[in-house]
């Protein structure tokens, strides 16, 4: 047989995606020139958080769910707080809403800056790690670290610390930051704005694969704001529902190869995260961000999954602008929370974690104790889409590439989603079985 047309049977196993808030592996079989099997296997043992929170008070639960993730604890707190406040009929007021949005901008900043500069960019610049990349692109990596630190400090401004912050409570915050602290960080945000603008230009200049795919984008959409803190659940194929109606359209399902539940929207896999959000929130971007994005010449909505990194850069610019705007004219309130009374019922809330919609549902008793909980995180929602993407991307890439190239492309696809398990995909061993 002509070797150039040989159709190999290949089995690629990436056995351990280890160390992180999600343990998984990748299985890929190619037979007779077709992908016959792809499984993103998540075998992380159940972490039982939904059981841990039972019998705890709502305020305790806000701190407990922050422990689920070291990168997006704010998202867990925001979804939980809004769920309880919705049930109890609490209006925390404009100051609380604005400051929570600022805090959330901090989380997006640090999470997106880390992913772009330390995880995703090395893939597209041909480096094995950020350390290697730093030798040739020191200014870019320094920019990433600066933005990440700024985001962390913005979280700590309200939460006392950036990892597992403790500042949020039902009805508001435990305390308001001082005007002096706010002024100092606002000045740093203004200094960072040119860097955020340069980041968009830089991401748009990278030689990304042109891999266009069909997928459903799902995200929160708010009447006035870019979907961060709240909004309706909206898709680009016509869905527009209140977060309380989630179960009418979304379904979690067990898949044998994953301990994390998959999710479907009306029976279909879907995408959550920066690209999906940007696709359905373009008209909610600040005018300055739109202008910078338009100068790149890259059109959104985009169906190129590799535009996810650019979408993160756009969201960083938006978050910096948003935080500057919301902190303008900051005044310390007399009290950073409103009083409330518990009530029995079902509490539902959702917000946009850096990686996508984070939906919470709690049953609460009359004393304000949680009796059951259900949490739908973004990474589990994206599992089905990631598997689809691996198949489509590798076919577009060409299955005749050697095993190392196929593995790298598959890992690049996974990393592009910034799943928690992506941490491990940089250093996996590869086993190839040929028949």
């Amino acid at each position, binding site marked *: 047989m002509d070797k150039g047309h040989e159709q190999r049977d290949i089995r690629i196993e990436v056995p351990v995606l280890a*160390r*992180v*808030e999600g343990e998984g592996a990748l299985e890929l079989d190619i037979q007779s020139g077709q992908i016959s099997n792809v499984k993103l296997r998540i075998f992380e043992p159940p972490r039982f958080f939904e059981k841990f929170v039972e019998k705890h008070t709502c305020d305790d639960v806000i701190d407990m769910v922050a422990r689920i993730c*070291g*990168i997006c604890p704010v998202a867990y707190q925001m979804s939980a707080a809004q769920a309880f406040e919705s049930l109890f009929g609490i209006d925390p007021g404009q100051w609380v809403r604005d400051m929570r949005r600022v805090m959330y901008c901090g989380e997006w900043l640090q*999470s997106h800056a*880390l*992913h772009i500069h*330390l*995880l995703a960019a090395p893939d597209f610049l041909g480096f094995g*790690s*950020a*350390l290697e990349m*730093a*030798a040739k692109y*020191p200014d870019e*990596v*320094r920019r990433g*670290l600066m933005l*990440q*630190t700024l985001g*962390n400090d913005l979280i700590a401004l309200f939460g006392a*610390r*950036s*990892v597992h912050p403790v500042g949020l409570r039902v009805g508001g915050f435990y305390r308001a930051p001082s005007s002096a602290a706010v002024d100092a960080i606002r000045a740093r945000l203004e200094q960072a704005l040119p860097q955020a603008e340069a980041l968009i230009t830089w991401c748009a200049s990278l030689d990304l694969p042109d891999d266009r795919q069909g997928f459903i984008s799902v995200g929160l959409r708010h009447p006035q704001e870019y979907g961060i803190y709240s909004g309706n659940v909206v898709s680009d194929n016509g869905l527009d529902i209140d977060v309380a109606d989630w179960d009418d359209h979304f379904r979690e399902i067990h898949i044998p190869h994953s301990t994390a539940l998959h999710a479907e929207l009306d029976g279909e896999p879907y995408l959550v995260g920066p690209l999906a959000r940007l696709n359905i929130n373009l008209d909610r971007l600040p005018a300055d961000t739109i202008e910078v994005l338009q100068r790149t010449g890259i059109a959104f909505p985009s169906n190129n999954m590799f535009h996810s990194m650019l979408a993160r850069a756009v969201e960083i610019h938006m978050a910096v602008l948003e935080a500057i705007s919301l902190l303008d004219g900051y005044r310390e309130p007399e009290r950073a929370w409103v009083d409330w009374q518990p009530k029995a019922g079902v509490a539902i809330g959702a917000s946009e974690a850096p990686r996508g919609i984070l939906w919470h549902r709690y049953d609460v008793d009359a004393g304000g104790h949680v009796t059951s909980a259900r949490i739908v995180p973004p990474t589990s929602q994206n599992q089905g889409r990631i598997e689809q993407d691996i198949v489509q991307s590798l076919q577009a890439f060409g299955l005749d590439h050697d095993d190392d190239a196929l593995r790298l492309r598959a890992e690049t696809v996974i990393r592009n989603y*910034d799943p*928690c398990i*992506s*941490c*491990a995909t*940089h*250093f996996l061993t590869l086993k190839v079985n040929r028949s």
Partner: protein
Amino acid sequence: MRRLILLGIGSPFGDDTLGWQLLDALVELGLELPGWQIAYGKADRPGPALLERLQNQDAAVLIDAMQGDEPPGSVRLVGRAELLQQDSPMSSHGMGVAESLALGEQLDMLPSALHILAIQVGAEPGPAAVAQARSLLTALLVPRA
């Protein structure tokens, strides 16, 4: 006066808290090092944000728990070269002290003097360990008259 930061690395739990405990003990002791203005700090899995904490310092000593062959609760100094020899993978969730320092070295973001004061896991820092830590820091940073 030159600037020195003593930064405890750890968390509130188990042996991971030993670095913080040793830092607290040195603060309580009223550590003084002639010629140095000392700042103190604690960090819980700082990741690459560690580099920001080391900015604008002439010297930094990270105080961290160690799994080695030393007697439990004993302390020793680990130098810059040994620190940077660590070869660990890097990720956004799992970027540890060694990886962050390697990145800082690459980006020329580290203080010229950088050490780890390591305390062996298995026992809390007692008076002997605290005295040993003070002696090590003094010998390291204060030239003999």
